[in-house]
């Protein structure tokens, strides 16, 4: 069965600092991987996705993620965080219509 683990429940970074959110997955084949962001009162929005090809994928709002098969990881990064990035971030894997989401990481941005 597929699973997703986001080890960090809550992360605090200063505005302008770099960010890395961790995601580990368990899946038998090459996974379809996603990162979504959920701001208070907002719906889930796709940041980026990985299906195949280049293991470093670029997304919206300056985010990127790197797929590492050997580590079963798909970590999300941003070089310089903005106050508006404060939100909850979810990593997900999907197979044949069935999605599995992690429990999310809450990002707080300090001024």
């Amino acid at each position, binding site marked *: 069965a597929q699973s*997703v683990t986001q080890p960090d429940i809550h992360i605090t970074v200063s505005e302008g600092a770099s960010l890395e959110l961790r995601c580990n997955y368990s899946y038998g084949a090459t996974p*379809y991987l*996603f990162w*979504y962001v959920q701001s208070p009162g*907002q*719906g*889930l*929005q*796709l940041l980026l*996705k990985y*299906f195949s090809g280049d293991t470093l994928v670029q997304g919206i709002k300056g985010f990127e993620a790197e797929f590492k098969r050997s580590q079963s990881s798909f970590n999300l990064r941003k070089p310089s965080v903005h106050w508006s990035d404060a939100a909850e971030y*979810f990593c*997900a894997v*999907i197979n*044949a*219509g*069935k*999605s*599995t*989401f*992690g*429990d*999310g990481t809450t990002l707080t941005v300090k001024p």
Partner: protein
Amino acid sequence: GAGVSQSPRYKVAKRGQDVALRCDPISGHVSLFWYQQALGQGPEFLTYFQNEAQLDKSGLPSDRFFAERPEGSVSTLKIQRTQQEDSAVYLCASSSEAGGHNEQFFGPGTRLTVL
């Protein structure tokens, strides 16, 4: 409409009541998904439709939960004899491709509170 809409946005039910939650996906999207999101957790998969066919309902927690999409567009999630543990936000998403391997577009959710 431009996005996925859900109604009602908020629903309060007494324990034992039946509820029906509606999802209007993006026009033309073949895939439709329902999720349950408890406080502090990620969305939990409930069921998946490809057009009008319910291809996966393995996530429905009990036989009190029923979903349909009779014409391949609007979908309804019905919960019979609601229990307090059903309190959660119910999210609907749609996708232009079968299997949802492309982007899923999420609605704002329906917050269900069972008293």
